[in-house]
């Protein structure tokens, strides 16, 4: 099944093999789906004629960056788009055309035939209802099971997805569970009515990398055992390589390339796919990817920019013992050196960064910044020191004052530290804009007029305004699309080479650290697990946690990723940990939900209602 169609740009597009033929069973089919949104500023054409099919037991990944329309496409299957959307084309779920169903039949379809797993497990569950209530609800609704029986089945389901002590969790509220556990609950709810297809919209994006690997394992065993089709929406090529059977790449509302996962990821045809794959830093490939070069020779005798000795940072809590976010951490950063601070959420990596900026005090230990001890330093004394430090934050949407023009934002440090006059400040800003490859005309623009990556480049420019000796970069590229991230990283590396500042680079992404850092510090629960030169940590980690962390990061190559996955499972078994999978007897499972379905009256026929 290889056909060629014309894309909007007039180039031939390779449609790839593996697309189901006409008479094959398909659980989810998009035919010429087209979506427009009416907004304040006119109509937005979000999806432009998308065709896609998902077989039972198959994972089809819909890949794209932000604004590509991939989520919108998937929501058409649920018919849950906001009212200002106009939908064209046809979507069939389990053989029924979604657009022609009456509202009540559509509701019968949702949850029963097609279920969803959302990106944000922290907000996807209702905070005021117990896990049990939310689990039981859809089973009772779709007549799978009722009352006490439903409760029992819910406990079984929680057990299946690997939640410990399921009976106890049933009476808990979502805020009492961790992010990974909540995502498991969401998955348990999704499979509770034994749907034919699950739409997973960025199911692991908000999770830590080890948790992500577990959830992916769970999803994979789910489709293998239950023969459920999965439409996986993601921007992460590593996740695609790990999970997908077939891939469709979306760009600005169109599918530009599709095929089996090997075809698309290993032999991409379309320029966009090539660029996208070229922008992903790969674990284990080390330096030199994407033309990003870092000066390797570091003067070992260079003065220390940061020197931590047994640093302890605590957060005060009302009526409870203080929470120790950073516990006995020691490491140092030489001038001109990039040190990567790696860890999962709650590891205390950002806390150390904030402490370096003098934003939170240390409870004990010593924090020497550019030779001066800042623990217990007064605000006024910090100011001259701050002149020598630059900072970049994670969220490009929040890190620039929306009421200040971009030029003023960049010039702010000069004004605060009273450096130069109006003229010289303006010149400096222009120089910096050149350095981060932005046109000088943005000087008088406002942050909301440029997009995420451009804003992050402005943040970089601002951080470099005063020629700092040290730069603290807290997850500077985590919120960016991969192609944009590549660009920002490249500029960052260029500038580091040019200005030679020391850098504390905080990130959860090991591949990025691998690309840039000279030295790596791995943190877990506020403690240093392992620290040392990059090669040592990345290639020969000695600590179990570091090994797990590295093993969990997916790479955008299906063959390599398959190998990595097996290695990871082996590693987990060696370390006495469990490999996550769905604990279920498939026949029994289907039987249980099918018996119940007999009870359900199969309502009226689909009435065309528009």
């Amino acid at each position, binding site marked *: 099944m290889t056909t060629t169609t014309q894309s909007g740009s007039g180039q031939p597009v390779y449609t790839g093999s593996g697309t189901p033929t006409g008479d094959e069973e398909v659980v989810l089919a998009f035919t010429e789906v087209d979506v427009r949104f009416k907004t304040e500023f006119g109509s937005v054409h979000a999806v432009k004629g998308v065709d896609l099919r998902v077989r039972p037991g198959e994972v089809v990944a819909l890949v794209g960056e932000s604004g590509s329309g991939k989520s919108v496409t998937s929501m058409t299957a649920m018919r849950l788009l906001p009212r200002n959307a106009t939908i064209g084309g046809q979507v069939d779920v389990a053989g029924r055309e979604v657009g022609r169903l009456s509202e009540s039949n559509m509701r019968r379809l949702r949850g029963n035939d097609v279920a969803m797993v959302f990106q944000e497990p922290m907000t996807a569950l209702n905070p*005021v209802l117990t896990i049990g209530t939310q689990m039981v609800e859809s089973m009772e609704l779709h007549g799978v099971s009722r009352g006490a029986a439903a409760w029992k089945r819910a406990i079984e389901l929680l057990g299946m997805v690997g939640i410990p002590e399921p009976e106890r969790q049933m009476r808990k509220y979502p805020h009492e569970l961790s992010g990974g556990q909540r995502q498991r609950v969401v998955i348990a709810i999704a499979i509770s009515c034994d749907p034919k297809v699950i739409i997973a919209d960025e199911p692991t994006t908000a999770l830590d990398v080890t948790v992500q690997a577990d959830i992916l394992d769970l999803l994979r065993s789910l489709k293998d055992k239950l023969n459920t089709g999965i439409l996986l929406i993601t921007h992460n090529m590593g996740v695609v390589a790990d999970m997908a059977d077939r891939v469709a790449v979306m760009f600005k509302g169109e599918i530009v390339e599709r095929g089996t996962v090997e075809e698309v990821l290993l032999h991409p045809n379309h320029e966009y796919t090539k660029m996208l794959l070229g922008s992903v830093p790969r674990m284990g490939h080390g330096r030199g990817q994407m033309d990003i070069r870092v000066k390797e020779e570091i003067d070992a005798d260079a003065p220390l920019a940061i020197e931590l000795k047994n640093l302890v940072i605590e957060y005060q809590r009302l009526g409870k013992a203080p929470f120790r976010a950073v516990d006995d951490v020691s490491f140092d950063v030489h001038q001109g050196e990039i040190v990567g601070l790696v860890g999962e959420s709650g590891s205390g990596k950002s806390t150390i960064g904030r402490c370096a900026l003098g934003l939170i005090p240390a409870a004990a230990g010593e924090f020497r910044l550019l030779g001066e001890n800042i623990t217990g330093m007064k605000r006024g004394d910090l100011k001259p020191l701050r002149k020598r430090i630059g900072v970049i934050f994670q969220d490009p949407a929040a890190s620039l004052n929306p009421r200040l023009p971009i030029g003023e934002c960049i010039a702010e440090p000069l004004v605060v530290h009273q450096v130069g006059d109006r003229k010289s400040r303006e010149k400096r800003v222009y120089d910096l804009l050149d350095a981060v490859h932005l046109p000088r005309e943005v000087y008088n623009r406002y942050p909301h007029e440029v997009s995420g990556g451009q804003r992050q480049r402005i943040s970089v420019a601002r951080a470099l305004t005063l020629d700092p000796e040290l730069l603290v970069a807290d997850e500077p590229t985590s919120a960016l699309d991969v192609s944009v991230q590549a660009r920002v990283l490249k500029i960052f590396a260029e500038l580091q080479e040019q200005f030679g500042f020391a850098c504390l680079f905080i990130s959860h992404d090991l591949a990025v650290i691998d690309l840039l850092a000279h030295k790596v510090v791995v943190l877990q629960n506020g403690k240093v697990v392992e620290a040392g030169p990059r090669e040592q940590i990345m290639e020969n980690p000695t600590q179990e946690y570091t090994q797990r962390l590295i093993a969990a990061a997916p790479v955008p190559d299906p063959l390599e990723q398959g190998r990595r996955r097996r290695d990871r499972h082996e590693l987990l078994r060696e370390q006495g940990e469990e490999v996550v999978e769905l604990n279920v007897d498939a026949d029994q499972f289907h039987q249980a939900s099918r018996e119940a379905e007999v009870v359900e009256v199969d309502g009226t026929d689909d009435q065309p209602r528009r």
Partner: protein
Amino acid sequence: MLQFILRRIAISALIMFLGSVLMYVLTINSGDPLQDLRESRAENRDQLMAARTENMGLDDPWWQRYLGWFTGVSRCFVLQCDLGTARDGADVNNLLLSSAGASLRLVTIATFLAIFIGVALGVLSAIRQYSGFDYTITFAAFLFYSLPVFWAAVLLKDFGAIRFNNWIADPAVSITVTALVALLFALAVASVLGGSLRRQVVTGLVTFAVVFGLVFAFDQVQWWVQPALGLPLIIVGAVAALGFMLVMTVGLSNRKVTYAGLVTIALGLVSYFVTGPILDDPSGWLVILALTAVTVVVGLAVGWVMGGYERRTAMTVSVGTALGMAFLIFMDKLLRGWAGFLELAGNRPVSTIGENRIIPERFEGDFWEGIFNWGVQLVLPTIVLTLISIASYSRYTRGSMLETINQDYIRTARSKGLSDRVVFTKHALRNALIPITTIVAFDFASLLGGAVITETIFGWRGLGAMFRLGLDTVDPNPVMAYYLVAGGAAVIMNMLADIAYASLDPRIRR
């Protein structure tokens, strides 16, 4: 949770104390307490002035006067309150006892009515966003929000009291008015229920017919002077209550729960006849309370026995239905008292002045007529106060609801296939109510303030009158008595709001 409440109580006590100092100092400095004597031409003027100075301790420094008052009040802890005397020698304790009841009744009823109606309207207008109903509610909210209370009260006094009295003397509803009323109902019901245009037209027509028929029938049987519900209406109402409870919980198709509700209604019918003699002239509110308790117990029992594995839902539905039916029976008996009350009041049921139609000492009606005696007087001030609070509650609820239905977990709920009804009532409403609880505290204070105005206009000798008396005569004791009761009520209301908050939001429990 307990710690949380204790902390709130401690803070409230501190605030009460600071507030009392502030109030006291401001009041004694708000004017010249000897003003009237200075302007008088009485021969013994100087003597009178000296006596008043002596009595009120006008020569003492403020803290000494405050301490004097505070000592008296602090004896409340040993149940021997001494709130001092007013300038004319009247005992403030007695003054307070005679005035507090009616005022607190007014404010409490207005608060709960406002919360209930306001939240309901807010939810409805959020669900039917951008519909005619929504726009009407929004505009009405703005209108009531901008309405000067005192002006509205004077207007209402004219239309609601004087003209109503004139009308009830010879009650007749013209066909035009009947049609108008029915039309209003039809429009409201149609736009609330929504749906396609055709469905809306049908609901509108049906509502119009029903309402028109009812009003016309009422008019024919002189219902306005001899009202009653009667058994048929009670049954219809009870079935409607059951339907409502079912729709709010499991939906109409659940057989077990429906049967439980029907059995409850049947038992209610039996009790209608059994309790008839007791209810003809009950000796007091205790009887009503006891019967309510019995109702709840019966409801619970029916749900327990018939619920099966859906016991909890069945119990909720049965109790809800039972209470709804009990309320209807109560209303039936109450309405039957109207004719007697009309007779007692000489066919002019509403008085423009006072918190009772007939002074309680001279009143000779039975239990039901007694309710009317203060009830009719309560209606107009309550409407005034409630209208303004409804406006703010409905706006806040609408905003909060719209905010909530944009949350991710609502999308999750919809993706499970839940209907709008369940999404709104089970998933959205509770979350949307959380921020509303904080508004209750502020709104209650403004209601108390509004009560001062309405009491003035409707000539109540209530708390507001006491406050004004004290302030006009620069006499701190009545003002402080007002402060104690109003402040105390506000603190209790706050506490309730806090508890509601904690029970709605599991994240702050424990």
